[in-house]
């Protein structure tokens, strides 16, 4: 029964989406609004149907209905309720089903939010959302059907992948990532809508700004939660291995980040129009590429699900989307002509251009390193991996340059800088020099030293914007410091949301540089009551025990941790053995403090308890990576609250009339505040 409900819902979603695509074409051709209204109805219908299909699957997972193929594959009687629910995304078919739900939600939201719009752009946008939807529903109906019939019905199943069961982060990492991935479909749909309807002014940028920010925020959260999960579960003390699937999530993040910046150049200057459309198309295609890499089983990776021929479907879909977008872009090159120009090489625009060049180079490098093994195997039949050294050597200089640009950007104005702007760089430059000196004294290498210096530099310039702005308000309006700060941010959510996101990534950069440069790493075998000392910590092996839990067997070493003579913690690194898996899942014990993490993994043990082999790591500032990720998310949230100009349109400013000029003229603190408040509204 449940199987029938679920399968019908996916089938009808496909029908509704296909109808919507045809109706969108028909409605635009015939200019009939009643037909275009039915396109929106089709979008709502897919959402309703996907909701039904997903709820049916969750119900089946929770009630252990093994007559449904997906439940037979990932369910088991021993699986607790919560884990049964999140098993929805523990394997290929379920994750595509969940993906379909998120996509249908986005399609319905786009249709609903713009239900009163009558121009062709919106009709095409709705149509594109449904095209992408139709592709995923088609997968569900055919090659990746989660609601297949199983006969005879098994008594029990193997349970979900142990990696999914082992940590609460697995409940949040996949959905966050999906929201980010799927969210990028919306800007893509709007870009295609704008191109097809020849409405290539800035309207589509304004309309998609918040969607892009939302998707970017979730993608960021998805990537950072994945890093965190890797750190907490995989037991190697790291969080990023340039694994192909990690790279697949990073690629659209890089292009989306580039887009968020370059879109501002188009608003202000009327430049980079083709580039912006290209970036948004690339971002979408990279999300599909990411799904292809993860879901096709083409790569060996922590994330790869084995999957039959589904890869071909993705490849064909990606090819069609790529060629279609390129053809459309070529056909509209006249409309995308640049209308503005640069005033000064030392302006914020220039920094944004450089930022985009670096991010593009970054994307290209990671893409090449990720796809090279596939190409090599296809072309020459050799199996090869591109090692971490390649990625580190190639991307570190780029990343360090980005840190530098993040510091220079906020300090320079749009248009032409004055001496005042250069003077603003003196304090940050001194901070940079001091950071570099400290780093060198601590024995950091070249890249790490530059990393510390530029991060210090950029943190100062970004933080200075908050302090100077709040200070001006305080003097002019007599507000208390905290009130001044919050009102400042409220008055310019876009600018200060951006600075907040910068501060987040800079804090994260400090954590990354410090933990990769100064980590202590020891492997040691201890007998009962023996100790080992790593950094400031002395670890004593007290006991090892095993315990049967409902769905797994746990082996844990009991360790006493001392700093000097003081006992500071008892840590229990574990190995979890799941019923149906030969491989135990490590669960390292982590003691996190602001200045450093103590990270202990249980590597091996003697069955009689006579010895245990541990990996003990001390990683400085590591916790700031996660804190930085949270700050980035908050920053994007602040920027999201800015709704854009009332009419949703903006005109590029006439060259040579930089808005900041007014600020300089006003001179007075109060004038500065007023001008700053207005700054976001285009002239």
């Amino acid at each position, binding site marked *: 029964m449940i199987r029938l409900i679920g399968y019908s819902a996916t089938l009808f979603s496909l029908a509704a989406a296909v109808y919507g695509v045809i109706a969108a074409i028909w409605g635009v051709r015939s200019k009939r609004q009643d037909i275009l209204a039915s396109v929106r109805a089709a979008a709502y219908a897919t959402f309703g149907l996907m909701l039904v299909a997903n709820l049916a699957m969750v119900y089946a997972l929770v009630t252990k209905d093994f007559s449904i193929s997906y439940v037979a594959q990932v369910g088991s009687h021993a699986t607790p309720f919560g884990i049964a629910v999140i098993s929805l995304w523990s394997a290929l078919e379920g994750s595509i089903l969940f993906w379909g739900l998120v996509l249908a939600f986005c399609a319905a939201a786009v249709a609903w939010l713009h239900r009163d719009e009558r121009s062709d752009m919106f009709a095409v946008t709705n149509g594109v959302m449904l095209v992408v939807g139709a592709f995923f529903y088609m997968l569900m109906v055919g090659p990746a059907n989660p609601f297949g019939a199983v006969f005879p019905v098994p008594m029990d199943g193997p349970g979900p992948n142990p990696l999914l069961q082992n940590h609460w982060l697995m409940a949040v990492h996949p959905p966050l990532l999906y929201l980010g991935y799927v969210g990028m479909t919306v800007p893509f749909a709007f870009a295609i809508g704008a191109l097809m309807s020849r409405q290539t002014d800035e309207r589509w940028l304004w309309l998609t700004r918040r969607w892009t920010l939302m998707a970017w925020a979730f993608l960021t959260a998805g990537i950072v939660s994945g890093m965190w999960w890797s750190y907490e579960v995989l037991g190697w003390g790291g969080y990023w291995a340039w694994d192909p699937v990690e790279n697949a999530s990073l690629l659209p993040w890089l292009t989306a980040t580039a887009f968020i910046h370059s879109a501002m150049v188009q608003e202000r200057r009327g430049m980079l129009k083709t580039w912006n459309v290209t970036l948004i198309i690339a971002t979408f295609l990279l999300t599909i590429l990411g799904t292809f890499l993860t879901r096709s089983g083409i790569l060996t990776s922590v994330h790869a699900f084995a999957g039959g021929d589904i890869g071909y479907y993705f490849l064909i879909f990606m090819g069609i989307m790529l060629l279609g977008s390129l053809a459309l872009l070529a056909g509209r090159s006249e409309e995308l002509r640049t209308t503005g120009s640069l005033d000064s090489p030392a302006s914020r625009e220039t920094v944004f251009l450089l930022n985009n060049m670096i991010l593009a180079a970054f994307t290209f490098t990671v893409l*090449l390193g990720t796809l090279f093994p596939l190409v090599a195997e296809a072309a020459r039949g050799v199996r090869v991996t591109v090692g971490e050294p390649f990625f580190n050597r190639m991307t570190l200089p780029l990343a360090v340059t980005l840190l530098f640009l993040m510091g220079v950007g906020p300090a320079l104005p749009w248009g032409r800088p004055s001496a005042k702007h250069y003077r603003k760089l003196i304090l940050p430059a001194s901070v940079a020099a001091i950071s570099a000196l400290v780093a060198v004294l601590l024995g950091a290498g070249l890249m790490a030293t530059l990393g510390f210096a530029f991060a210090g530099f950029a943190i100062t310039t970004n933080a200075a914007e908050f302090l100077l702005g709040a200070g001006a308000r305080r003097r002019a309006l007599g507000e208390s410091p905290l009130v001044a700060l919050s009102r400042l941010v409220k008055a310019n959510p876009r600018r200060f949301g951006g600075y907040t996101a910068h501060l987040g990534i800079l804090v994260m950069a400090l954590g990354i540089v410090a933990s990769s440069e100064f980590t202590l790493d020891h492997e040691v075998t201890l007998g009962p009551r023996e100790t080992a000392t790593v950094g400031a910590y002395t670890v004593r092996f007290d006991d090892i025990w*095993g315990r049967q839990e409902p769905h797994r067997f746990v*082996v844990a070493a009991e360790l006493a941790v001392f700093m000097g003579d003081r006992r500071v913690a008892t840590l229990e690194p574990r190995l979890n053995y799941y019923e149906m898996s030969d491989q135990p899942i*490590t669960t390292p014990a982590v003691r996190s403090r602001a200045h450093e993490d103590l990270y202990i993994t249980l590597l*091996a043990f003697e069955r009689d308890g006579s010895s245990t082999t541990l990996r003990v790591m001390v990683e400085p500032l590591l916790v700031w990576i996660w804190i930085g990720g949270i700050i980035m998310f908050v920053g994007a949230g602040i920027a999201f609250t800015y709704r854009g100009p009332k009419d949703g349109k903006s005109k590029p400013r006439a060259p040579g009339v930089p808005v900041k000029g007014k600020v300089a003229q006003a001179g007075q603190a109060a004038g500065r505040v007023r001008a700053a408040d207005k700054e976001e509204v285009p002239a």
Partner: protein
Amino acid sequence: MNKRFIGVFGTVLVLTGFGYLIWGGLGGSLVYFVTPTELLARGEAAYETPVRLAGNVVPGSVNWNARELDLRFHLSDGETDIEVWSKGAPPAMFQDTMGVVVEGRYNRAGIFESSSVMVRHSNEYKAPPEGHRPADTYEALIREE
């Protein structure tokens, strides 16, 4: 020489330089997957080049000294077998006949010095064969309360 020409010329120059860097970087950090037979077939080129060696652990060959963190075993693809030496603990559940991938280099003494030992397993994990219980391997640890 107009502005446009300089722009195009500059872009091409930057791209070429960057492409060259990437290509060089890529060539230097490729690691090939080989079996012991394939490795030895390389002759002189087999020595001191980083590779990933894939094979199965030869039964009875494992020698793990926990105190010294010293692991030695033989890896075989059915035809050829190569002695592997690794500093560091073996992966959990490391055992005879298991498929493993070791990364490292083959030295002049004819020993493969490995920097990391990975268990080769598909992520599509499946139930163990009939009659085999993973529980057997760890049940000895449950103590009488």
